[in-house]
């Protein structure tokens, strides 16, 4: 598959494909080139290898697959149950992988740190063996550093690629194209962690925002692709307090990510994406969840620390969904239409979309129960709305900030994040003799980033929106991993760090040229 043909696109060679490639290019010329290339690459890799299971490398790999599945008939037929996020491999049973033909997909590879880590994990669990043709790795674009491939126990990784020998600037350019594609498809939130409901707006956008702003803080901005984005930030005060009694003991629900993102999907349709990630203790002394309905919803995958973290995150996100739908319910019924997800396991169920992407992170999720809960929340909100509409709420004013200003602050926040992390890497001797950080992932918790933002004199709601801007532009990446707290407690928490070497190098250069935004 990897024989090069002398066809040049963006200064690099395409791999040889079949005639279908040309058909694609001819018939789908309205689709941007990068979308077509990725789709073609993935289709060809799948046709050649015929996998039974796909492992998608977090986080852009996962987002790309989801974006392509939404727009490609053939890929959308691939069963969601057979897609696994690389982050979940560790906590899933080996039987799920054993003796299956597996395709590992990632978008880009510079040094191959993530791929190697994943392969080591598969090898450690006895899933990968040398010369095992059942496991194949497909990476869309390779940096020139990896032009000869990544040697891994006698094999050269990847087996399939589309671009290779990319210079730093070509690699950077390919990365920007991919990020733009994701933004066109509705941002990086097309990953596998978050549930969503959709709303079609018939009335005024300003009334929509005012409803959200009833008690929460709201920031509106435009993504690079000119889509409207709304960040609804829920402060740590009533009524936006998470029900910590439903979570394992010791779960931290304050100074965490707790928000709702609302992203324009086109034609006045918005995706409403509630997000909350409380930090859970690594060691859970009691059996959680204790509520049988939660057990039914989440299944057995919550028995591991990371699984518990995601389980708590899903329950917390449902709570955030309750807040946002209740706030929206004060709008008149004709002003918007809420569209709820359908249960893919029930072909006759109503609703136009499904949340089966969640299986990649929640492999034992009971989708029927989730859909039922979402529906109950929506009904309760509608019922509350009738009462709320009769109450007059004072219109809350909020300082306006333009998108240009937000983007400027986003770069400032990113600069300080990189600086603080570099200082930590250096001061804790966390680098090896070649200078690379020994600890990966190594990020900052939300509360630390909020503290940085406050030193930059930014409001919490603005800081929260900056996270979204940085995530959508793939400038920061999220992790869920173990963090140490001073009192000998280890927690599983959400952390954030500049996304990989390309971004980190750019940020360091930027800081050298322009200085840090404030004295640090």
């Amino acid at each position, binding site marked *: 598959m990897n024989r090069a043909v002398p066809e040049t696109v963006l200064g690099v060679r395409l791999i040889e494909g079949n005639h279908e490639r040309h058909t694609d290019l001819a018939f789908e010329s309205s689709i941007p080139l990068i979308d077509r290339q990725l789709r073609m690459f993935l289709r060809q890799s799948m046709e050649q290898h015929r996998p039974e299971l796909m492992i998608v490398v977090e986080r852009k790999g996962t987002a790309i697959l989801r974006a392509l599945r939404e727009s490609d008939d053939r890929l959308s037929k691939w069963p969601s149950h057979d897609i696994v996020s690389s982050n979940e491999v560790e906590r899933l049973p080996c039987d799920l992988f054993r003796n299956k033909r597996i395709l590992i997909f990632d978008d880009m590879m510079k040094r191959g740190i993530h791929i190697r880590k994943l392969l080591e994990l598969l090898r450690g669990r006895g899933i990968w063996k040398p010369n095992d043709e059942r496991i194949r790795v497909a990476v869309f674009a390779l940096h020139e550093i990896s032009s000869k491939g990544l040697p891994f126990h006698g094999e050269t990784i990847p087996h399939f690629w589309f671009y290779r020998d990319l210079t730093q600037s070509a690699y950077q350019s390919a990365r920007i194209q991919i990020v733009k594609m994701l933004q066109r498809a509705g941002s990086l939130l097309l990953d596998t962690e978050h549930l969503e409901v959709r709303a079609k707006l018939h009335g005024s956008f300003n009334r929509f925002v005012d409803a959200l702003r009833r008690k929460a803080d709201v920031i509106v901005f435009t993504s690079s692709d000119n889509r409207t984005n709304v960040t609804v930030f829920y402060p740590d005060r009533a009524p936006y307090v998470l029900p910590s009694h439903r979570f394992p003991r010791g779960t931290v629900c304050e100074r965490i990510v707790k928000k709702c993102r609302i992203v324009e999907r086109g034609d006045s349709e918005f995706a409403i994406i509630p997000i909350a990630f409380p930090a859970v203790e690594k060691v859970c002394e009691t059996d959680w969840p204790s509520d049988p309905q939660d057990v039914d919803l989440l299944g057995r995958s919550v028995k591991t620390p990371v699984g518990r973290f995601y389980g708590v995150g899903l329950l917390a996100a449902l709570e955030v969904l309750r807040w946002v739908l209740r706030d929206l319910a004060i709008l008149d019924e004709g002003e918007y239409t809420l569209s709820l997800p359908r249960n893919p396991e029930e072909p006759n169920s109503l609703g136009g979309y499904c949340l089966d992407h969640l299986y990649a992170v929640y492999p034992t999720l009971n989708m029927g129960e989730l859909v039922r809960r979402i529906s109950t929340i929506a009904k309760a909100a509608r019922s509350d709305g009738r009462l709320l509409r009769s109450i007059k709420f004072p219109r809350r004013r909020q300082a306006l900030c333009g998108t240009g200003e937000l983007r400027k602050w986003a*770069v400032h926040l990113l600069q300080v994040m990189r600086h603080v992390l570099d200082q930590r890497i250096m001061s804790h001797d966390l680098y090896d003799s070649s200078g690379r950080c020994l600890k990966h992932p190594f990020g900052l918790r939300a509360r630390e980033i909020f503290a940085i933002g406050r030193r930059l004199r930014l409001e919490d709601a603005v800081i929260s929106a900056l996270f979204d801007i940085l995530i959508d*532009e793939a400038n920061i990446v999220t992790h869920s991993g173990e963090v140490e707290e001073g009192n000998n407690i280890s927690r599983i928490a959400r952390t954030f760090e500049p996304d990989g070497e390309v971004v980190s190098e750019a*940020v*360091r250069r930027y*800081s050298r040229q322009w*200085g840090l935004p404030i004295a640090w």
Partner: protein
Amino acid sequence: MRGDVTVDFELYQGLRSGREGSSFERTFRALGFLFHGWSTFHGKRKQTFEEPEQGCLRAIAFDKLGMLFTQVWREVFRAYEPRVREMLESRSLGDVKNLVLFSSPLDEVIGKHGRGSGLYDAKSPPVYLLEILYNLQIDQGMPYFDIRPPGKAPDRPTHHETIISAGRECEDVQHLSDSFTDREIDILKDFRNSVRHLDGSQIRALGTHRGPEQTADDVRWELRKARVFCDRVIDCLKQETCFLDSSRQMAEYAREAYWKSHGNEEDYKTARDAVLSEVQDGELRTAILTIQRPADDIWSAKPVQDLVPVSRKAWAVSRYVQCGAFFRKNPSQRVRQVSRTGKHFKHQWEECYPDLTACGISVLPQRPPDLFDSPAGHIRQEVLDRVAEVLNEVRLEIPGD
């Protein structure tokens, strides 16, 4: 708000190719100019330990001068940054003579005793300012500084005994005029005039401290390092092996912690006052006031105050342990100290014992021979136990860690 115009302020669009190279070059020249002014000052100035020869600085003080320059210059540039961006966007050089065009590209890197200036790119370990300058001196004959590492470490310009003197080409403002704007030259001249009155200790203090959070962080960093060696001493005590080197290193970090938490206050205060009394330029003054907080703000702040007793105790204990290690290794010096080193440790013992008592530690023997079971024997078991107990107390106490 909907349909808001997206302004181009993206990471990659903000980067300018080749920019760092010229910024580094200018920074080194500016630092050379500053240092030359300090070096050739003929007025009244105390000659301290940091100035081993007239007009020369030791490595640590020089590195702190680099830190001071980097921080202040970055702050100066911050005020000009919007105008520089505007100028670049409009592609018009209109007012360029009156602008500060570059920021110092040096990073704040973490060295043996905390922050210094240098370069960190995550591809290799941090490179310190003196290493960069020394390499330029060796490879390209850069004439702004003359860096002389000590004979015992000829390849280590960062060695604390390295001596730096000013290069010939920084004598006057002429060497700046080629690539600096008028405004930059004015500020640099004023900066040079205001720092040349400082003695080496004052430069070191001013470049070491900025504000309370940073000072508290730096003290904690030294205490954490002291804790590493404290653990080694405890291991040696358990295994009854020599702990002279570990205790020496522990004492070195504990001493730095103590000086940063308490001892540098006077030098910092007098240095800051001296600089502010000399500086004429309003923007430079504002930058210095922003970067260098008043001494009271730093050393009266609770996080720093909380660290004073801890670092004082750590220093007293580590010196005592170091003396004990020396006398353990040299039984002949326990009663009468005949060698120079023996006298040095006896003197150190006499100094640190009252400090120990002042820190509330009175369980340790008061005279060196009382540590041992006989004139040529081993450390007594109950002394070992008490020392281990005191060390364990010290290692656990780092407020805010």
